[in-house]
């Protein structure tokens, strides 16, 4: 059958059955409107959460499905490579659209401890197990007080030395295991997280009768010093190198520092990882922090980074996103139920219409129509009803969203991250809504279409 003929048959059927098909199409409209509305809401809420509420303008990514090396792994198994992000990946991430800067992180790949604090709290305290990592100085610098630096001290190495006594006051002799001599170095700068300070103040300090260490106290101390015990901890020794110590100084508190542990310049960790764990531990990174040009680019960059095998390390946003997706999924399910009901209405309508058109179908068969022509006629009617219902449903969803945005602007008080709109209507969503409408209409109509195509014209015409 020619397309023009099909068009005439479809238009004719739509005109004649506009009441019945309109009622069926209304169900599709309602279902699609609900589906598009909820998905648009979910898209925007997710974008706001991922782009604004949680990561602000940055996101930390780490290799997917690689467990972090725990203490036991580090000590019993000698530790495994702490990093999975290669330098070339870091460079590719840096070239992604929307990424303004990339800051790699590198964890200690060897056991360590830390002892000190006498200057601040009057007596030596410490831990035989210390977690630490290296971070780019550019990420920490904005959090430091003026005059304090987070740079690798060996950028300005001192005189050659064999032991700390060979160096100036406050310096120590940075001498790798087995090296005939080292260089005098300023203490390694360390930052800690506000979370760790809070944990010490609220948990450890009261338990041990120690005074709390507030930010002001650290600032007053102008850099409390302690010693890193490198290559050995309570649970064992490093796979390479001989245990030794290094002098460190706390230079500040930064939200970018690791939550439970010490954060030092990344060049220092690279050096120490090589000394105590080998070259592989120094050749890649544990994770990378990406800074975006705009907060709303975070979600897009996360999607692109997934292709590199990286996922967000801070899963709060992802968890909330999953929660939102779950809720939206449930609401979409409700919309799906509406569509299924609409689909069953269409099934009933098509069966009734096909029964009413038995003779007409028979006449068309006698005039040359094939079963395929008859099927195409009714399928096309279903597609038109579905597309119209789905398309209008998308329009209704947009209209409803506009009303809600208007009410939100006028009635809702301002709150952090209050978006200009609560909905996102990308073109694919509207097109997908119309397609969903057509799909459900087709599914509903399929039994009627088969009935029409298989109708026995002889019975319809000669044996009415």
């Amino acid at each position, binding site marked *: 059958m020619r397309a023009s003929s099909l068009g005439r048959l479809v238009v004719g059927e739509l005109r004649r059955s506009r009441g019945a098909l309109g009622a069926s199409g209304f169900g599709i409209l309602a279902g699609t409107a609900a589906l598009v509305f909820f998905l648009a809401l979910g898209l925007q809420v997710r974008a706001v959460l991922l782009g604004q509420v949680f990561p602000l303008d940055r996101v930390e990514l780490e290799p997917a499905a690689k467990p972090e090396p725990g203490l036991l792994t580090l000590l019993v198994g000698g530790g495994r490579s702490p990093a999975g992000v290669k330098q070339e990946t870091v460079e590719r991430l840096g070239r992604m659209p929307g990424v303004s800067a990339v800051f790699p992180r590198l964890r200690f790949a060897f056991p360590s401890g830390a002892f000190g604090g006498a200057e601040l709290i009057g007596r030596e305290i410490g831990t035989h197990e210390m977690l630490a990592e290296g971070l780019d100085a550019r990420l920490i610098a904005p959090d430091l007080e003026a005059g304090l630096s987070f740079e690798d001290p060996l950028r300005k190495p001192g005189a050659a030395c064999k032991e700390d006594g060979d160096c100036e006051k406050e310096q120590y002799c940075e001498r790798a295991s087995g090296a005939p001599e080292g260089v005098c170095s300023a203490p390694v700068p360390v930052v800690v997280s506000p979370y760790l300070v809070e944990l010490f103040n609220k948990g450890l300090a009261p338990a041990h009768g120690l005074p709390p260490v507030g930010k002001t106290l650290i600032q007053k101390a102008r850099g409390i010093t302690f010693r890193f015990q490198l290559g050995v901890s309570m649970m064992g020794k490093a796979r390479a190198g001989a245990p030794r110590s290094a002098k460190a100084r706390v230079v500040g508190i930064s939200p970018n520092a690791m939550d439970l542990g010490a954060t030092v310049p990344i060049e220092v960790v690279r050096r120490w990882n090589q000394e105590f764990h080998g070259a592989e531990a120094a050749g890649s990174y544990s994770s990378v922090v990406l800074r975006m040009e705009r907060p709303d680019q975070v979600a897009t960059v996360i999607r692109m980074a997934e292709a590199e095998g990286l996922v967000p390390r801070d899963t709060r946003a992802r968890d909330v996103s999953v929660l939102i997706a779950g809720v939206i999924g449930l609401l979409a399910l409700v919309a799906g139920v509406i569509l299924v009901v609409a689909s069953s209405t269409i099934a009933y309508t098509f069966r009734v219409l096909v029964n009413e058109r038995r003779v007409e179908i028979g006449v068309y068969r006698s005039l040359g*129509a094939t079963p395929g022509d008859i099927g195409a006629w009714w399928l096309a009617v279903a597609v038109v009803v579905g597309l119209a219902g789905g398309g209008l449903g998308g329009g209704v969803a947009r209209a409803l969203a506009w009303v809600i945005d208007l009410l939100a602007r006028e009635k809702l008080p301002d709150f952090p991250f209050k978006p200009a709109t609560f909905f996102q209507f990308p073109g694919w969503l509207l097109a997908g809504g119309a397609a969903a409408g057509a799909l459900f209409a087709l599914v509903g109509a399929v039994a009627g279409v088969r009935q029409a195509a298989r109708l026995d014209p002889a019975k319809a015409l000669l044996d009415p």
Partner: protein
Amino acid sequence: MNPPAFRLQDLRRIYQEGDTRRAALDGLSLDIERGSFVAVVGASGSGKSTLLAVLGALDRGYEGRVEVLGQDLARLDERALGRLRNATLGFVFQSFHLLPHLTVLDNVASPALFADEPFDAAQAALLALRQVGLEDRALDRPQHLSGGQRQRVALARALLRSPPILLCDEPTGNLDSRTGAEVIALLERLHQEHQRTVIVVTHEERLAQRAQRRIALEDGRVKEDSGAA
């Protein structure tokens, strides 16, 4: 030598009704020559309408062999069968089967919907209506016509593609005697003017007597055939 309009060889049409098999057509073998006017008569249930459905390529559930103008129907796919019904066969039904939502003109033009090539269907429809004397009712709805007029419109629809074969199922069955006579005269004219093959299934003896050949069916078999060799 041209093949006959129809050639039937051991034609059977069996209907399964529960556990029983009923033969609506039971071993028919006959030829119907081109250009002949044939009346098929018989009591209700004798197999007349079933025969017409098979001849018209509307019923494919038969056994045996059926040829239309030399083409074995069993070898034709649905598209070819559709083409055959569209261009070679014209149907006229007892109940007219005009589509009430269409005008007379659109009803007559409706075979054009299924034609392979587009053509000026409105012009052809007007021409067909002129042949049956209803050109002036082209824009009316069928329900506003009398029974005789409706049957003439149905005839015009059957004639739209100028098919060489007309198949008529009780064409006067729903008409009074005067309009029935008009329709019979029209069928005769269509047969004579264009040497069409006309096959009429009928109860009406008056119509059967006007045919060149009379085939009487009983229980799906040929009881009497005036044209038998």
